[in-house]
Structure formats: C-alpha cells, structure tokens
C-alpha cells in the first residue's frame, strides 16, 4: 500500500526541514540583530512609506477576487429567503430529472 508508508516518509522529511529551518532562524537572529530604523523598503527604485506597507486585513484578497469575478457567488447569498428556497427546489428537481434519466 502506497498510502501507508509515504505519509510517514514525507512527514519525517518535513520534520527535518522544519528543524533545520528553525536552527537557521535561531542562528541568523543571533548574528543580525535588526534595528527599527534600518528597515526601509524599496520597490522599483522608490522608497515606500511604512503606512503603505501594511495591507488592510479586511480586504486581504479583494483584488484577486474582483479580478477573477469570484464575488458573483457572494452576491447570490443576498439574505433573501425566497431565493434560497427556490435554489433548494431547483436543485431537487434537477437531481430528480438526472436520476430519472440515468436510473
């Protein structure tokens, strides 16, 4: 069985990776103590102010969702009870038609 051994193998590999990663983190913290005024961010040669760096948490993925038009599904959940019940009925009828077709 593949499924019985591979997870254990991969799990141990990941454990080693995490251990090494944690070790590196510890070492690098000791070597480079960061100071607050040293941190400056550059993008395309321009310096970015600190207030523009933080993403507003509320709209973390809003750009992606708007670009991919994924908010259509959210707009359907309008809080209108009749539309929910109609969806249940429609789903039921379509399912029954499908079952009658394939049974």
């Amino acid at each position, binding site marked *: 069985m593949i499924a019985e051994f591979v997870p254990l193998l991969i799990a141990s590999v990941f454990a080693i990776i995490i251990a090494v990663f944690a070790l590196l983190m510890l070492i690098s913290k000791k070597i480079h103590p960061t100071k607050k005024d040293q941190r400056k961010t550059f993008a395309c040669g321009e310096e970015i102010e600190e207030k523009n760096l933080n993403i507003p948490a509320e709209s973390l993925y809003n750009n992606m969702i708007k670009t991919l038009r994924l908010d259509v599904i959210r707009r359907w959940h309008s809080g209108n009870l009749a539309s929910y019940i109609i969806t249940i009925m429609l789903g*039921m009828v379509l399912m029954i038609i499908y079952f009658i077709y394939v049974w």
Partner: protein
Amino acid sequence: MGDKIEMFSFYAILILLASAFATAVIGIKREGVAPYIAIASTFTALVLTLLTLRDVIANRIVTMQIGGWLAPYGITVVMDPLSIVITSIVATIGFFAALVSFRFVEERKVEYYTLFSLIMVGILGVLHAGDMFNLFVFIEILSIASYSLVAYHRDKISIEASIKYLIMSSFATGLILLSIAFIYGLTGTLNMADIALKLGTESGLLPIIFGLLLTGFGFKAALVPFHAWKPDAVMGAPAPIGAIFVLASLAGVYAIFRMFFTVFFITNISVYYLIIGLSVATMIVGAILALQQTDILRLLAYASISQVGYIFLAFGIGALHGFGYTAAIFHLINVAIFDSLLFFCAAVLIHGAGSSDMHKISQSVRFSPILGYSFMIGMLAAVGVPLLNGFASKWIIYITTLYVQPLLTIIALLVSVLTLAYGVKAFYIMFLTNSSKKRMRIPITMLVPILILVAACVFLGIYPQLGVQISEFVVKNLANIFYIGKVFGI
C-alpha cells in the same frame, strides 16, 4: 438467537434525555447545577459509547429490538462499524463542547444546557436508528433543538438566522417525510433492512424517492445547492455550538452513506458522478466564500462546508477506486477533530472579546501564544500540511483521484491552496496584527479540550495507520448483507 449483547450506547441517548429533563427541573431553582449535569451526562454517554465500541470491534454488528418485538415490526436499534465510529466521535466532541461551554455560557444556563442535551440526543439517535421513521423523528429533534439554540442570544442576528433556518429546514425535513411516505407505499415497511430486501430496482418511483432523500439529508450535511443555512445558523448560535453543527453535518453525511450502502445499495455509476459533481461545487463554493468573510464564525462555517465537500469527493470516487471509501471515512474523522478544534479556539476568542468580528477580536483581547499555535495547527490540518492528520486523509484522496481523473486532483489541490489562503487571513488578522493591551488567561476547562484535540491532530498525523485501519474496518463491513442478516437474526 443465542445470548444477546447489551447495547450500551443506546442507554447514552436515554441518559442524555433524562439529563435534559433533570436540567429543566433542578435548574429552575438552582441555575449553577445545570452545567455539571450536562458534563456528567455527556461523560457517561462517552463511556457507554466506548463500551459499545469494544463490543462492535469484537462482533462487527450489534442490534437491539426495543420491547422484544421482532425485526420488521418492532423498533430496531443497530450499531455497525460505520455508525459506531461516528458515534464515538460525536460523543467525544460533545463532551468537549460541554466542557468548553462551562465558562462560555454565563446567563440562561438552564435553557442552553437543556437544548444542548437534546441536540446530542438528536445526533446520537440518527446514528442509532434502524428504521426510516425514527431517523426522521431524531432529525426533527436535532432540528428543533438547534433552531432554539440559534435564537439563544435574542439579538438581531440570532433571531433572523433562526427564523430563516427554521423555514428552510422544515421544508427540507418535510421532503424526507414525503420520501418516507413513498417508500412505505412501495414496500409496506419502514425497517431499513426490510426495505433493502423488498425495494427491488425496477420501480419508476425510485429516482424520485432517492432525489427527495438526497435533498433532505444533503440539506443537513450542507451540500452546495442546500448550504445557505449553515453560515447564518453558526453565526447566530453560541460558539461551542458551531462544533455541534459540524457533528450535525456528519449525521447528515452518515444518513446519506446509510441510504447508499444499506437501503438502496446503489451500484449505478452515474449516481456517483452526480455526487462527485456536487462535492466539487461544495468544495469550491465553500472555500471561495470563506475567503471573503470578516467574521470568524462565518469563515469557519464556510470552511466546514468546504471540508464536507472533500468527504463527498472521496465517497464519490469510492465507486471507481476502492480506496475512496476508506479516504472518506478517514477524512470524516479528521474533519470532526480539526473543525471542532477551530471552533473551540474561536469560542475562547469570542469569550474574551465579546464579539465574533475578527477585527474587533484583534483590537480587544490578547491571549497566551498557546491559543495561536493551536489555531494554527487546526488550520494547517485543514489545509493538509504533513505531520498533521488532514494531510494523511487528503493524501489518499489525491492519490485515488489521480488514478481516476487527474482534473479532480488539481481541483482538490487548488481548494487546499484556497484553504491555506483563508487560514492565513484569519490567523493574520486575529493573532499577528493584534494591537490589544488587555491580556487574558485561557480558562482551564477550555484549554484542556483544545490541547487534547491538538494532540489528536498530531498523533493521527504522524501515525496515520491507525486511522486507515479504522476506516478499512468500517469499509469491510459496509455491505448490506451483514446488516440485513444481523437485523433479522439469521
């Protein structure tokens, strides 16, 4: 029939029912006693369930005829491996939910704990029922108790959620009763084993009956065209009840499995194609909607919808590749563990902050890092990161779908990425951008269940063979011949 095995887990239902009455009687005079009654009765239920688990492992299927009437006429109570595994999980998480509620619920305890006991009665009863009508009655008990629990806070959100959930859910359970009427007209019996013998495959009514049943139980399990109630209901209810709603979904999943395997014994591959289609829609819609939430309970509700989609994906694949059923059962166990862990972490946060909005939580309260790490472990288990239990079951799902249809594997991986995205969002808002000065300690009754569930996540992650063995034991005994034979005492 020889010597009979006592079915202990059925007494768990009676004890929980008695505790509901006792809470109502004693609690009117002394409100403080109510949580102790609930904790004691759920713990007793857990112990009794574990006793039956031992019996089922030894004997495969345990039955009981209530009142001594023989099988097709009396009420039969059946425990086979599928139901006992889910029953054990439900009893365990129910006990933990009672512990978490101990500090969470501070007012109107009598109302809360009476309804809590009743909702546990409903879920356990669905898992025990050996005939269609008791299944329906227990689903109604579960539903009515949950309507009142959703309206517990008596504010705008709770009341709106409750009335909407009530209307939708009563319609869906009405469809279940309609299909039971059709089945009774067709076969003249209600016992599941008897129906399986008498139903045949020829009648033209069968697709209608099955469509009605799948709608009704799919509503309980929150499959996608019927999922609109779940985020509203979870948002209205107190936070520990979110975990109970996950268990209620699992009861719906169990009912669908029971219909597929025992009552109808469906071998038609096209029906499984429909299940795969529904499950893909469930996964994607749940994950995409969870991305856009700002309320932690709503986000977790959509996350649990998405995870139920994974269970049904594995289940639908099962007809094409034998390992799918194993993956479905294993993932069901894991979903119960990590989803309830997430809901309990959310309960701690909401208990501290007094609001379920993620932004308000991050501004108003700060807990010890143990909570953050527990939440992270729960989320990473939901994503399916190695060393945690979600990975083990999702790995089997990926492998089996890869054999059948690689497109499904890509979708499953994509939804995992989306899961990571909303997990990062919730973690980032609530723990990393925390700007509060108010420090609070986690109550010990909330910390212990969370730590036990974290330990379970890690244990099943580094030792998945245990879960696979349990699931294979379930799958081996799924065939309805064993079930029917045991019910009729052959």
